[in-house]
């Protein structure tokens, strides 16, 4: 067992201990009768009572079955508010393998401020157990009792319009009397520059919902933010949305460096000179009928990087698996990824300075994105992208993996890495980039807070370094510049309200793709994608790889 494996197991044990499993074990030992029949040890994280959440509570329920056989059932929660009134409830199917700890995350829908009790109940055939806890929601100050409710209905399912945007604003009131109000809208560019505005004066009655149509005058092709506001002398509220006009015409006004491809060819040449020294260590696993391997390898500049490969167990001799190369979000540690898909191996990579590859580069979260930004040949993402290429090198060494069926997928930074890797390495056959950051970087200032805040701070600490110089370097790390070199099928996901990967930036990259491509736009989401993206991605990938 490698030192890393030991560390990993120790960390897991510590997490389990913190989350109460250890205490539960002690309870288990005290009960002889229970010990004979088997039970499920339940704990939750956070385990402390009265944990404070700002709007949405998050719990993870950890389950450890001491039954000798697989058991399945449901894990449900009920939230009660003041006076024991039931507020929310939900359940999900669970499957437990003997002595295999598993955590089920629960994201609780938004609740009003207050103290709540949550009870998790595990129901298996002939077995039931419950644990409970209290938590506090401290959101915005409680509104006054009377409110004006606005509902906005864009006249486009994805927020994309051909010429001019159109909305229907529904307004209803719980005030005891009619309210004279102003309904207004403000259209701005992604950078916040005012484009259009208008308002109407209405009287909002006490019964029913009144609908008002707003046809926004035509604007130039691109993406815009739009805010709808209601104002009365005693009340104000705002709904923020975004829309796009003819996004297929969106282009960056900034070209890519003439030596862009040469720059990356040189990086790959340097990588090829580093002996990979692959080290593959199998890790004991009891989940999803998969074999799990910890992978260590040397990448650019001799840095050690790590990943995890999980492969379906198959009795078919010579069975080959398509490969999902999972690329990490910003500073997200990627452990082994499981799943019951019998056709796909999953290789999750921890790029240098991220997750489990922090032996040499181990900086604070905010420092990572700017590490060595003053020198494009030393910038951290140059090595990170080469780490991804090395991961492909590794996949090519494995005879049980289909070398012509590799999908590179990720979200946020992972989405950027997917674009970049597919741009510099044509061995990948499918690219899936959700909410890719760092696209059309020269237009990022004034449009996004992150990573511009960290970049500006970094410039102040580096004498002689200017934003122009930073942008000159970042041209070599611009998602749109990689996009034009991608040869494989590419799926892009975008949230219209994304303030980290703004829609005009993502679309500028998307429009640079000269391959079979598809974009899925989520009109009401920010830096995230909806379930349909995953479904479509899975279906398109399986069709591409002929995994019918």
């Amino acid at each position: 067992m490698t030192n890393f494996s030991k560390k990993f197991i120790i960390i897991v044990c510590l997490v389990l201990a913190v989350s109460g499993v250890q205490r539960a074990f002690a309870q288990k030992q005290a009960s002889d009768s229970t010990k004979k029949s088997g039970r499920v040890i339940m704990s939750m994280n956070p385990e402390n009572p009265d944990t404070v959440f700002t709007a949405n509570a998050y719990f993870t329920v950890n389950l450890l079955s001491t039954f000798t056989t697989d058991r399945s059932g449901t894990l449900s929660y009920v939230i009660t508010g003041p006076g024991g009134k039931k507020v929310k409830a939900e359940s999900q199917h669970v499957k437990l393998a003997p002595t295999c700890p598993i955590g089920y995350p629960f994201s609780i829908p938004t609740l009003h401020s207050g103290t709540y009790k949550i009870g998790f109940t595990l129901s298996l055939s002939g077995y039931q157990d419950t644990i409970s806890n209290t938590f506090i929601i401290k959101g915005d100050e409680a509104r006054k009792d009377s409110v004006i409710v606005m509902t906005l209905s864009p006249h486009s399912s994805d927020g994309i319009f051909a010429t001019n945007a159109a909305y229907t604003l529904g307004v209803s009131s719980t005030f005891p009397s009619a309210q004279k109000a102003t309904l207004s809208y403000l259209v701005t560019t992604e950078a916040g520059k005012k484009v259009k505005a208008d308002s109407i004066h209405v009287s909002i009655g006490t019964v029913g919902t009144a609908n008002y149509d707003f046809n926004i005058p035509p604007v130039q092709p691109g993406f815009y933010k739009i805010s709808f506001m209601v104002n009365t002398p005693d009340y104000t509220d705002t709904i923020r949305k975004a829309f796009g006009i003819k996004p297929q015409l969106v282009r960056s006004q900034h070209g890519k460096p003439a030596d862009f491809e040469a720059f990356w060819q040189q990086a790959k040449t340097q990588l090829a000179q580093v002996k990979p020294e692959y080290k593959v260590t199998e890790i004991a696993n009891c989940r999803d009928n998969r074999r799990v391997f910890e992978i260590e390898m040397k990448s650019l500049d001799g840095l050690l990087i790590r990943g995890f490969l999980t492969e379906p167990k198959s009795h078919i001799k010579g069975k080959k698996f398509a490969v999902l190369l999972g690329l990490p979000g910003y500073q997200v540690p990627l452990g082994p990824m499981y799943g019951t898909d019998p056709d796909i191996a999953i290789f999750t990579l921890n790029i240098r300075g991220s997750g489990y590859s922090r032996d040499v580069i181990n900086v604070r979260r905010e420092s990572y994105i700017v590490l060595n930004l003053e020198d494009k040949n030393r910038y951290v993402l140059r090595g990170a992208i080469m780490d991804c290429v090395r991961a492909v090198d590794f996949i090519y060494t494995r005879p049980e993996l289909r070398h012509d069926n590799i999908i590179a997928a990720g979200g946020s930074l992972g989405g950027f890495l997917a674009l970049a890797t597919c741009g510099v390495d044509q061995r990948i056959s499918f690219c899936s980039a959700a909410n890719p950051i760092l696209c059309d970087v020269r237009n990022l200032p004034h449009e996004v807070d992150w990573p511009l805040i960290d970049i500006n701070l970094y410039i102040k600490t580096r004498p002689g370094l200017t934003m122009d110089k930073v942008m000159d370097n970042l041209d070599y790390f611009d998602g749109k510049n990689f996009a034009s070199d991608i040869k494989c099928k590419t799926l892009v996901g975008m949230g219209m309200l994304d303030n980290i990967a703004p829609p005009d930036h993502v679309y500028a990259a998307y429009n640079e793709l000269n391959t079979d491509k598809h974009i899925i736009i989520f009109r009401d989401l920010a830096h995230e994608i909806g379930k349909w993206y995953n479904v479509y991605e899975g279906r398109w990938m399986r069709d591409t790889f002929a995994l019918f």
Partner: protein
Amino acid sequence: MRLLKTFTKTLLVTLTLFIGLQSRSFADGGFPVRPGRLLLAPSVSYFFANSAWDTTGTPAKRYPNNGKYNSVGVTFYGEYGISRDWAAVVSLPFVYNSFTQNVAPTSTISSGVTDLETGIRYYLANINYIYYFSLQGTAITPLYHNDPSLGYGEEGAELKLAVSGSGNMFDRSVYFNASDGFRQYFGTNGPWQNRYSATFGITLDPEFLNQVSVTGSGIFSQSTDKTFSPVLEANKDYSFFELSLSYGHTFTDEISLFATAGKFLTGYNTSAGTIFSLAFVYRLDYK
């Protein structure tokens, strides 16, 4: 950053949880066949009829002299994915037919292999990777001589368009297959036929282990030969519509079992029968 973490993990986990239901449904649909996959489906069926529709259609009338028709069939069905777009299909049926009545001849028995069907299926297109279309050409080759109880004894050809799809409904995974084929037999009075089928299936559990489906299918066969025989294979000018219910259980990724019960609901110039069948499905991947 919590959002980033959650999102990224969710992205990767949900991706791998996607399993195309089409790989679990029985053959004869619009879904493409995986390259290198061999699907073998031996099946056994039992058909029983003691009444028939005449040339005017309903209602069905009992056979005279307490006549009863029984047929046991064993069919070997196989398909193999040649490439991403092409698949080979073969079907070889064997039947044992008996017709009994209380006057001489009290029993008439025939048995043997019937029409060998060999075909090739082409993956035409899809819509959003949800609806799949295929086109199949099939050659019909009789493996018997001068035995009208086994079939027409004529060579034939069929062109069939099929569409399949899968999705979610009622919080369950569902799928459908629909096909329509035109078949022409090339002999004297060789009928032309429209053979159609539509299936809707729903899984009963998240692991896709159990499913039920309902199928409506039928044949509309037209010929100048209007002769009626209680032996299904012998009629040339007839039609029927059959409704069947099927239960499928998946034992492993490779082995499934389908049990089906069906009844002929309407028709003319053919037996009004009931059918039960069991089909074992073996999927073997060679790539």
